[in-house]
């Protein structure tokens, strides 16, 4: 049985639908400590703001339980961030399972000669009523949130069995876990960051495997087979 941690962060339908698509219908959505401790696997979903989500975990005493679990645990998106040491979102201490911090992306634009604007993106700093002009120079604007399909590389651990280097998965986030020794997949957006983390029986993806097509389904399947 899979236990999905219920800490009142909203809709888990996309996760349960994705589990059903890979043949897993034996799941329970719970905050019961006994069930969470005895389940074969645990999934920590996450939506919303990190410090609020962390407070909801703490209200239920789950912030101290989760790091003691011994079965495979998978965090998704904000769930993964809560498994890191701290998050800049709401400036909150997290569970400290993964040895890294969660930081905010700073919107960046790059001109055709590859120079990055030092103070970040003019989109975030210039007044809205600036004159409208069409600048036809090639220009890359890396907007925040990071939303859409991006690649993962330097894949480690059985979570990425049968997944090719450079596979595309789906992200929606404004905060990212920094690279660290626990990084098991790397992505690049504005800077390199941990697309996934792993330590002992704990795993976490910053991307959304439940929305990442066949690649995401394979990753979920790999987790279920751990």
């Amino acid at each position, binding site marked *: 049985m899979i236990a999905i941690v219920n800490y009142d962060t909203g809709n888990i*339908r*996309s996760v349960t639908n994705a589990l059903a698509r890979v043949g897993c219908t034996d799941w329970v959505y719970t905050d019961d400590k006994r069930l969470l401790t005895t389940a074969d696997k645990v999934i920590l979903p996450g939506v919303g703001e990190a410090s609020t989500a962390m407070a909801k975990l703490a209200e239920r005493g789950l912030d101290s339980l989760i790091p003691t679990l011994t079965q495979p645990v998978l965090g998704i998106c904000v769930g993964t961030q809560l498994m890191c040491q701290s998050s800049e979102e709401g400036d909150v201490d997290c569970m400290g399972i993964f040895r890294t911090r969660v930081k905010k992306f700073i919107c960046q634009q790059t001109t055709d000669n590859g120079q990055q604007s030092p103070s970040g993106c003019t989109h975030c700093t210039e007044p809205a009523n600036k004159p409208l002009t069409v600048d036809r120079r*090639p220009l890359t604007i890396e907007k925040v*949130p990071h939303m*859409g399909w*991006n690649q993962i590389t330097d894949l480690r651990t059985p979570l990425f069995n049968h997944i090719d280097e450079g596979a595309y998965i789906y992200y929606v986030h404004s905060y990212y876990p920094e690279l660290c020794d626990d990084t098991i997949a790397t992505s690049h957006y504005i800077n390199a960051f941990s697309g996934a983390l792993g330590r002992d029986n704990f795993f976490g993806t910053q991307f959304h495997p439940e929305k990442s097509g066949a690649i995401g389904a394979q990753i979920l399947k790999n987790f279920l087979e751990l």
Partner: protein
Amino acid sequence: MLAKRIIPCLDVKDGRTVKGINFEGLRDVGDAVALGSQYAREGADELVYLDISATREGRSTFTHLVTRIAEEIDIPFTVGGGISTLDDAARLLDAGADKVSINSAAIRNPNLIDEIASKYGSQFVVIAIDAKLIDGRWLATTHGGSRPTDKELFAWAHEAQERGAGELLFTSMNHDGTRQGYPCDTFARLAEHLRIPIIASGGAGSIDDIADVLTHGRADAALAASIFHYGEIPIPVLKQALSERGIAVRR
């Protein structure tokens, strides 16, 4: 590298897709779930389902359909059409939609954007604007482009962003259906003016049109209907061609 997104749009009436398609091996071409799955398998990056039902029964059929889509489709999808209250958005979120697209209702009641975004997050709200170039000004329109409003495109898009919209879906009603390409300069100006991603819609007739709007037009995604539905440009062919032009796409 973040990929540019290719998004087929499916019009749904009373629970069934209405535009013709000619996929081989698809027995029921009106089945919105089967068609969406087919696009997902072919490499679509997201899907948009627009409910064009005119009746309440049609709307409730659509909600039921969204539940089925969420069960079957393993890529993000947006739903739009007839969303005019927070409750409408909540119902579609519960059914499993990843994003809602709001259009005329936001023009009538801009506060709707704030309400949905503050409750469910900006990533859930797509502002759709159908604009028309009238006497040198781009004006947002309603009723399929037939009724211009007093909302100027750039100001309205910016206002929607500030109110919490997470993405802009812009359709030029001057170009929609013409297959002559997108107004790339206007898209580029929008990209300069906004910090949210922009989905280009309306006017694609060729691979070059789509390549143009994703490069010169600086759009983050291209949405199209007929070129996909009629099988004129299969998604794998489109992505191969974009990739050969140096555009990052998911393959």
